[in-house]
């Protein structure tokens, strides 16, 4: 097996874990953590493909990963800010409960 | 002879390695270097605690520890034995696992920083291209350990102390990063070895240290402030501000775990002082061309100890700030100054040689400094007062 496949498998696993977390947890913050994990898995893919791709000197994948880190950070800030904002009004971070209140 | 002395540790290591098969040599070489780092800095920590206690004692017109061993030099060893044999208390309500991990994470994070610090000519564990970034990445990890310690204790003072500490550390981390960027701009490298090399030149016997330029001086000042705050030293020692928060985030720690926090804090001071020396004071280079015969590592550790003495001196003198003042200072003074300094550094490069750029760059920085200082004072109505008397 090529090293790339290993990295891709790890990335897929982390992506799946993140997805499972995002879908199963009730706490909104943990859902965001799951999403962060998924983004990171994507980053790993980017870097792995860049590393084993045809033009590593072009830096494309890596630059993309760095930009992606920046975007993910922005996403985390806004996402967690939203959670805090919702908590302020609904006094909960529980997604099930939020749904109930909405309905 | 001078060169031998300069390289004595490197030569010693190679001489020792010669006894080993060639295949082992690189690995064992690394281990030897690591052992040196792990050995030297705790020893220096022990020495500095005595120095601090005696130094502050002298500032306060007293002697300080002088009865345990000659001149009190064995005091830290006694403290060590005592801490080692002291009972370890973990509160029942506390989160035992995190409570245990916190000091370890702190110690690991602060020791990792030394990997990229050049402690003398050819004396660096790893010369990485992204060395400075690595250093900051490791520095960022200490915040997690502080939070772990405070949160896991489940003590109000601890948690409040930890939150304060983390808020303070992240605020000054930005300043620390931005004040180092100017150095990187001028030296063109994140590798600390190259940064020292760039400063290790002399004109008229005087060194090309960055501190001797307007932007370098401002950067060094901001770096010093941020470093003091990062390491929770007076006047920024709020997280352990005992007058409000008993003992801050390590209130519930006893025995050697507490000692590890203590050690971690001091080692972080060494590390950040070493970084400051490397960035602005030419690392291991001699302050005068004529003094180059003194070994490079001596200069490095000399600068380190001078920085420690300044830390101690400030601790012996200054009262501490309040949390809001500290945060305002970080975001409303240090950070704008750092950003301005970036701009000045750019200007410096594009203005070319000559006296003019000295005048203009210094003028901008001094004006900004004075303006912000006066403005703040006027706005808050602070200042000396006169008093009236009734007969």
């Amino acid at each position, binding site marked *: 097996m090529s090293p790339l496949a290993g990295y891709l498998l790890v990335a897929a696993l982390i992506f799946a874990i993140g997805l499972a977390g995002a879908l199963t947890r009730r706490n909104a913050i943990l859902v965001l953590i799951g999403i962060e994990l998924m983004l990171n898995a994507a980053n790993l893919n980017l870097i792995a493909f860049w590393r084993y791709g045809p033009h590593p000197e072009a830096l494309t994948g890596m630059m993309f990963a760095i930009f992606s880190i920046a975007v993910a950070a922005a996403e985390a800030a806004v996402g967690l800010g939203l959670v805090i904002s919702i908590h*302020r009004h609904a006094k909960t971070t529980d997604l099930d409960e939020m749904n109930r209140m909405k309905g | 002879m001078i060169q031998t002395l300069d390289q004595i540790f490197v030569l010693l290591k190679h001489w020792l390695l010669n006894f080993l098969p060639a295949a082992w040599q690189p690995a064992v070489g690394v281990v030897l270097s690591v052992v040196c780092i792990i050995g030297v800095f705790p020893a220096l920590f022990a020495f500095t605690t005595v120095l601090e206690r005696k130094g*502050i004692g002298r500032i306060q*017109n007293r002697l300080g520890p002088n009865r345990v061993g000659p001149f009190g030099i064995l005091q830290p060893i006694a403290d060590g034995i005592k801490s080692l044999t002291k009972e370890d208390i973990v509160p029942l309500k506390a989160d035992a696992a995190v409570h245990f991990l916190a000091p370890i994470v702190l110690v690991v994070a602060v020791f990792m920083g030394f990997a990229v610090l050049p402690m003398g000519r050819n004396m660096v564990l790893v010369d990485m291209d992204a060395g400075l970034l690595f250093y900051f990445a490791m520095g960022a990890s200490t915040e997690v350990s502080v939070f772990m310690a405070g949160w896991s204790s489940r003590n109000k003072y601890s948690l409040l102390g930890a939150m304060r500490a983390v808020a303070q550390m992240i605020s000054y981390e930005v300043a620390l990063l931005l004040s180092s960027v100017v150095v990187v701009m001028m030296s063109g490298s994140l590798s600390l070895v190259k940064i020292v090399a760039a400063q290790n030149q002399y004109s008229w016997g005087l060194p090309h240290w960055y501190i001797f330029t307007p932007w370098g001086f401002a950067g060094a000042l901001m770096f010093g402030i941020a470093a003091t705050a990062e390491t929770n030293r007076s006047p920024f020692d709020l997280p352990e501000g005992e*007058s409000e928060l008993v003992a801050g985030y390590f209130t519930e720690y006893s025995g050697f775990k507490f000692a590890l926090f203590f050690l971690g804090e001091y080692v972080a001071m060494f590390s950040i002082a070493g970084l400051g020396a490397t960035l602005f004071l030419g690392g291991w280079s001699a302050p005068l061309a004529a003094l180059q015969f003194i070994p490079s590592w001596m200069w490095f550790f000399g600068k380190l100890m001078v920085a420690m003495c300044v830390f101690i001196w400030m601790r*012996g003198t200054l*009262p501490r700030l309040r949390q809001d003042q500290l945060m305002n200072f970080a975001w409303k003074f240090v950070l704008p100054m750092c950003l301005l300094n970036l701009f000045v550094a750019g200007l410096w490069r594009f203005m070319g040689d000559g006296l003019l750029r000295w005048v203009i760059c210094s003028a901008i920085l001094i004006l900004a400094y004075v303006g912000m200082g006066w403005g703040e004072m006027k706005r*808050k109505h602070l200042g000396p007062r006169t*008093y009236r008397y009734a*007969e």
Partner: protein
Amino acid sequence: MTPSTIDPERLEGWNRPPIIEPDGEGDLLEVAMGPHHPSTHGVFRMDLALDGERVIRLKPVFGYLHRNHEKIAETVSYLATMPYTDRLDYICSLTNNWAYALAVEKLVGQEVPERAEYLRVILGELTRAQNHASSIGFLLQEMGASGTPLMYAFREREKILDLFESLTGSRMMCNYMRFGGCRVDASPVWLDAVRKVVAGLPAFVDEFERFLSGSEIVMARCQGVGILKPELAINAGVTGPMLRASGVNYDIRKVDHYGIYDRFKFRVPLGDHGDIYDRYMVRILEIRESIGILEQALKGIPGGPVMDPKAKIRNFRPKPGEAYGRIEAPKGELGFYLISDGGPNPYRYRVRPPSLINLTVLEDMCLGSNVADVVLIFGSVDIVLGEVDR
């Protein structure tokens, strides 16, 4: 600025601490500060409710050093109460002695020889100087100054304590004054030693001021923090440097002219803002004025006895009656209220503790400020628990 200018209709409730509403975000953190806390000067306790770092409720809890001073004094003789007064405000035992002696002298109408009055003034002003110095030291300690100002203050304090010891025999618990004079006479050697110490005091105050008064950190932490309005200060019975830092000209040395204070020229420093910095500076300036009084007293001290020959030591039984005597102690108005029923022990013995009453306004000063300011405001009140709880 007299409170009579306040509209009486508006008065109901104006002297209560303000009610501060939390802004609804975050939990209130209920923190007990004390009784074991590094900066409560012993065993004081404050129950705080914090909204973030803002104090929205503060309840002082007293009594951790309630040693039943008043009860004990009702069971022992007038003379035997004297050493107990040393232990009230244990930093300034001599002024406590003085206040108690003054009250008893009022009760029985006793005269005090002139030399004894001079000695009382000298010792009282020395006490004031050392109390103010160490109180500033403690204040700075609370500000986190790792002990250096306190060490400098205690360096001077030790010199003054040496004087106390060589005259009265004890460093802190002097037990020196008696009804109708002082216990022992001061030798010329001792007076020379006092002159030497007094000559050294201005240099110490200068050093202190260079060290601290101009420091930006001290200013930033002290100015505009813990403001006490003069109207409230008077109404709450605040006395001493705290009252004067709020700008109220009230010094019992000037008002009552007890002892022989009308013979000395001195000024009363007043603050305009009533914040911590003013309290700090008023104390510093009062040390300077005390030095002036000391110099005058040392110049003018006459010869003669130090004890009224008519005074009785044993079998001291005042006639029935009552008296309230007060002096300007370093911490404020220290008063003693005595009721005699003709017996050897006081029927009722009451101390008016300036420390306790100055703390009345602690809550008003602290509410709404930062939790870190609480210890500073508390320190600027300058209390001693022995007197607060008695």
